């Protein structure tokens, strides 16, 4: 019963993710494309939930939906002046062909991996308490954890640097 239910839920999350991704890629309006992206992010959060990782799922929503996509929205608002002017240029044949080619790459790589590996569903992983998760991040995985924060720090410092340079030139 639970296994069937899990498959149904998994299928619906995958549908949500695919629909969101397609909207993000095809939609002519930038804001609608962003909404597609947000839908995808929600779907991914759902998958985390299905994998018994509620902390990661909620963090996904908190950070990506609550902050990153909002900042993308801000960028759209700053760049475009109104909802009527954000129609994209029609796509050329060349662009369509190239994007389809780009689509082929992950399909071939992932497809061959799946065909060779014969993916089997494992048992549901046990939910790790937040405390243990934190101890793990600051224990055995401390180096990778700190390296990721370093990447974020560099990105932030870069953003500040760019902003200050512009202010100086004016």
């Amino acid at each position: 019963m639970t296994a069937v239910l899990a498959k149904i839920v998994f299928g619906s999350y995958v549908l949500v993710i695919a629909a969101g991704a397609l909207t993000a890629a095809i939609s002519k309006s930038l804001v609608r494309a962003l909404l597609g992206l947000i839908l995808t992010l929600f779907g991914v959060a759902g998958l985390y939930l299905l994998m018994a990782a509620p902390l990661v799922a909620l963090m996904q929503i908190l950070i990506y939906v609550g902050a990153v996509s909002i900042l993308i929205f801000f960028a759209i608002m700053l760049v475009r002046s109104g909802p009527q002017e954000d129609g994209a240029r029609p796509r050329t044949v060349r662009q369509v062909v190239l994007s389809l080619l780009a689509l082929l790459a992950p399909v071939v790589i992932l497809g061959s991996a799946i065909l060779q590996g014969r993916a089997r569903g494992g048992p549901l992983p046990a939910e790790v308490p937040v405390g243990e998760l934190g101890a793990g991040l600051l224990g055995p995985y401390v180096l990778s954890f700190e390296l990721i924060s370093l990447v974020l720090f560099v990105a932030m410092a870069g953003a500040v640097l760019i902003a200050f340079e512009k202010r100086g030139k004016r």
Partner: protein
Amino acid sequence: MGSFSIPVELIRIVVGVVAIAAFVALNAIILVYLERKVAGHIQRRPGPFEVGPHGILQTVADALKLVGKQLIKPAGADAFLFWLAPVLGFLPIFLFFLPMPFGPVLTTLEVPLGLLLILAFAGLNVLAICIAGWGSNNKWSLLGAARGVAQSVAYEIPLLLALLAVVFMKGSMNLSKIIDSQGAWPWQWNIVLQPLAFLIYFICAIAETNRAPFDLPEAESELTAGFHTEYSGMGFGLFFLAEYANMVVVCAVATTVFLGGWKGPFFSGSWWFLAKVYLLLMLMFWPRWTYPRVRFDQLLNFNWKWLMPLALANLLVTAFIMKVG
């Protein structure tokens, strides 16, 4: 479990969500009346007085009027986005109340990460404001939305840091457990240990719910009505409901995390919870009729130069004392 028995959790959630819906609607009607009365008395006038004794039916009449009004979409607006926004603003309300411990057993769903659940979905409110402002095809709406974004992204950080200080001390994000760790008497509440965190949280909560003096996204005197300028009838009604429900949510979180939740001297129970929530709501009404709206640069400077460093320092000191003490 039989082949077709309904899980208890599901029944609990369905009953809980229905109760939440009733609570939110009723509460909004009472709060709007209360706010207008409080505003009136602060400004030395009676407030609503015509409909019913002491105007007590005024908001019911207002609600009926809102329901009856025609829904109008401005020409050139993106219809999908325009109608999505109010719904998106209102839906997360149910999620916010889901892990809320109204009383010893009055919790719809025990969520180990309850606090995080509320904070995660709080971002949807900003998204709704963005979409509303963008979808309306109106400069005022767009300006309101732009302000809303900058404001909520900024004030979300000290808010999180302030709550994190308490989570540090208690080692749990389960709202019921945070209440369990506090005693019945006021000096056993977390506010005594974390007064600065409470102050920061409360200021940020007012800003996050877009209440005066931080109501820049809808600043009536500058932007007509900000992001909801173009909404009529229940389109506006949903935003309105969501705003009042959000106020209750932030006050309920403050009650749970800082003020001992449903625990109180002598008779612990949901009435203590409601009493504290309403007291905080009154505190939220107060500055609206006392202070003028802040300017946008004041708003952001106050956050980045005062609240953020203070919240960070508070968190550091908390961590230090936890480790040493």
